[in-house]
């Protein structure tokens, strides 16, 4: 793990889980697999705190444990999974676009709690939805259940590995840690539950006082009642499926930008048909015949078969090679070249970064090098039609920032410098890695800056929160406008201005973090697609 990744992980853990969890998580990421005793020794925290933190991390799938042969348990942190915390809003928003508010809340609850049983999720989501509905209406469990089943069918949520059914042999002591197993077939099987009920609306009295009572009462009820029928079957969000969805979205919008709406719809149809047949790391989808595509086009599109064939031919002939033709049977067999598409997306991102950072002439040189692969200094000047001095300057600038590299080709075995070719080239993979590293650093910087801004204005923020609380309570008890005015004036105009500035800055920084995360996704997908899977 690079330093930048570790720093970013520790910032994310600290923001979302607190300092204790952050310390332990960072320690595990930095030093690898460790047993409990080592963690306690090296971090200097108390045993109970370490245990608590590990429970939290395991619950959220950020740390896994393994029973070693010698009988002790070792814990390992999943650095990549911690970095996904940055992408939670995008997952939740995607669920909203696909499955409306119910889906959004289901995914949100699962992300906030790590793993949950289906009955618990359904209950919580129904309660939350009931809160937002008008008085008198409640949300039925059946609706929430059906949305959950749909999410499971399309693989957006999956089952967690299960505790194996232990044979009841009292002589053999149970192992110190269960070895969790999951059967491929069962991963999306929804248990048959008979969830009947409606969401409960929380009474709107003093929340602070009664909240604890209610929580206690519910818990007592839960303890007294029998364990739910799906006890032990936990569900988690299937992050890879969401990534597949984002990738498909990226490809479709790229096609739409490059060609037109209809071609993007055709590609979208092809990708949809291949969702279940193609694994997420395959280089291209399974071949689809033109007849099948014609049948599966969405109902609104009434284009003739010939037009579809023309579109497919155009897509296959496009130099970007998103779609490839793999045969002629069935009216033409077509596939979507996933790896090539990801490479194109990553390349486009690189080009855009070079353009924004160095200017359009540098971008021209960059694109030239991408196209021609290796060029000498003189050739660059000629092809790009840029005067020698400026071309030299730009090339060195890009070289110093590692976007471009030099390749030596000796003419003689003694590598004499006067008799060697020096060619400029762009290595996409290494540039992508370099940029990804930079992205991690950027997000870490953004988070730090946001925390700094918030800390600087802490006093003011607390004051404004207090004033709002007073205002709210006074409005609830029906105060006059004059009194409300007086309270509002407790915050002076310059302070209000300062608060406005703070809010604007924090929003800007948050939005930037989301943006950088999109770039991170594109680059990571590309790099992952180039790694050879065993």
């Amino acid at each position, binding site marked *: 793990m690079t330093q930048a990744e570790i720093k970013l992980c520790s910032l994310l853990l600290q923001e979302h889980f607190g300092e204790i969890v952050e310390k332990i998580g960072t320690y595990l990421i930095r030093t690898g697999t460790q047993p409990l005793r080592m963690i306690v020794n090296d971090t200097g925290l108390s045993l109970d*705190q370490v245990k608590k933190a590990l429970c939290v991390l395991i619950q959220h799938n950020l740390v896994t444990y393994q029973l070693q042969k010698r009988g002790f348990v070792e814990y390992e942190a999943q650095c990549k999974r911690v970095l996904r915390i940055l992408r939670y809003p995008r997952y939740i928003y995607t669920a909203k676009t696909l499955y409306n508010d119910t889906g959004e809340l289901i995914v949100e609850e699962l992300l906030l709690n790590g793993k949950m049983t289906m009955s618990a999720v359904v209950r919580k989501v129904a309660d939350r939805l009931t809160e937002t509905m008008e008085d008198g209406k409640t949300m039925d469990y059946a609706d929430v259940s059906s949305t959950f089943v749909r999410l499971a069918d399309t693989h957006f949520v999956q089952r967690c590995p299960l505790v194996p059914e232990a044979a009841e042999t009292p002589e053999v002591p149970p192992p110190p*840690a*269960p070895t969790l197993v999951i059967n491929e077939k069962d991963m999306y099987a929804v248990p048959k539950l008979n969830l009947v009920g409606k969401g409960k609306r929380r009474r709107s009295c003093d929340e602070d*006082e009664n909240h604890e009572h209610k929580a206690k009462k519910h818990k007592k009820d839960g303890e007294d009642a029998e364990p739910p029928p799906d006890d032990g079957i936990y569900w988690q969000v299937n992050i890879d499926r969401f990534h597949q969805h984002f990738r498909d979205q990226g490809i479709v919008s790229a096609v739409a930008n490059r060609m037109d709406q209809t071609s993007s719809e055709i590609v979208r149809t092809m990708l949809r048909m291949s969702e279940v047949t193609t694994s997420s790391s395959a280089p291209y989808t399974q071949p689809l015949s033109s007849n099948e595509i014609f049948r599966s086009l969405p109902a609104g599109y009434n284009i003739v078969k010939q037009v579809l064939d023309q579109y497919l031919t155009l897509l296959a002939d496009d130099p970007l090679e998103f779609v490839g033709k793999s045969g002629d049977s069935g009216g033409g067999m077509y596939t979507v070249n996933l790896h090539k598409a990801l490479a194109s997306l990553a390349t486009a991102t690189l080009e855009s970064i070079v353009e924004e*950072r160095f200017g359009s002439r540098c971008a021209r040189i960059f694109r030239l090098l991408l196209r021609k692969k290796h060029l000498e200094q003189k050739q660059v000047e000629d092809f790009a039609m840029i005067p020698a001095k400026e071309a030299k300057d730009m090339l060195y600038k890009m070289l110093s920032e590692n976007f471009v590299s030099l390749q030596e080709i000796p003419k003689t075995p003694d590598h004499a410098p006067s008799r060697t070719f020096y060619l400029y080239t762009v290595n996409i993979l290494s540039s992508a890695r370099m940029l990804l590293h930079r992205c991690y650093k950027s997000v870490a910087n953004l988070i730090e800056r946001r925390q700094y801004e918030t800390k600087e204005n802490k006093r003011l923020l607390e004051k404004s929160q207090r004033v709002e609380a007073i205002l709210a309570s006074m409005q609830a008890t029906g105060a006059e406008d004059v009194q409300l005015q007086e309270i509002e004036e407790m915050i002076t105009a310059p302070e209000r201005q300062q608060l406005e500035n703070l809010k604007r800055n924090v929003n*800007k920084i948050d*939005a930037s*973090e989301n943006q950088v995360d999109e770039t991170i996704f594109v680059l990571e997908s590309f790099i992952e697609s180039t790694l050879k899977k065993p």
Partner: protein
Amino acid sequence: MAGRGGRGRGRGQMTFNVEAVGIAKGDALPPPTLQPSPLFPPLESRPAPLPGGEELEYMLALKQELRGAMKNLPYFVKPGAPRRDIERYSDKYQVSSPIDSAIDWSPDWRRLPRELRIRVRRLRPGPPHAPPAAALLPKCKQRLALDKEEAIKKLESLEKKEEEVTSEEEEKEEEEEGKEEEEEEYDEEEHEEETDYIMSYFDNGEDFGADSDDNMDEAVY
């Protein structure tokens, strides 16, 4: 030896032919850098403005909500308040730190390694609001509904937390009667309760060697 003489001669001799990369003879090279690059280098071009749009604004709101929500979840482990050097009388009436050894949510212990199980040692309940009968809890709640004094409220909540933790622990312990370990612990705790000493001060040596010697937060007088 032969190379030493040639090193200083000629401005900036390089190992390769500099003309090949385009540095013509007599060109001014940039001065050598004698320090690390500046921390905030000046930006040559202003970055493009952030894209707006409904989608991105919604995600922004989601992100901020998520951050706020996670701070209130039981998964957010707050460090215990630092112990003050002198125990003050008012400490009893302040909202104390979350009990380090308590865990606010109950994970499925079957899925976790056994060593992570947290056993709570009973803290001696505070003086006037004594014990523990679970039957008292509903009465306490009713009283609270009427009584709005903050101090009592906080004290009750604190006690409830202790109750909840210990009663939870008791229930769990009662469930697992098969395990000898648990039974022994339970018995020990029963015995422990009859003394006047605060049990958290006492290190019964059980964990010797297994755990690290963590600093006992309470000073032993």
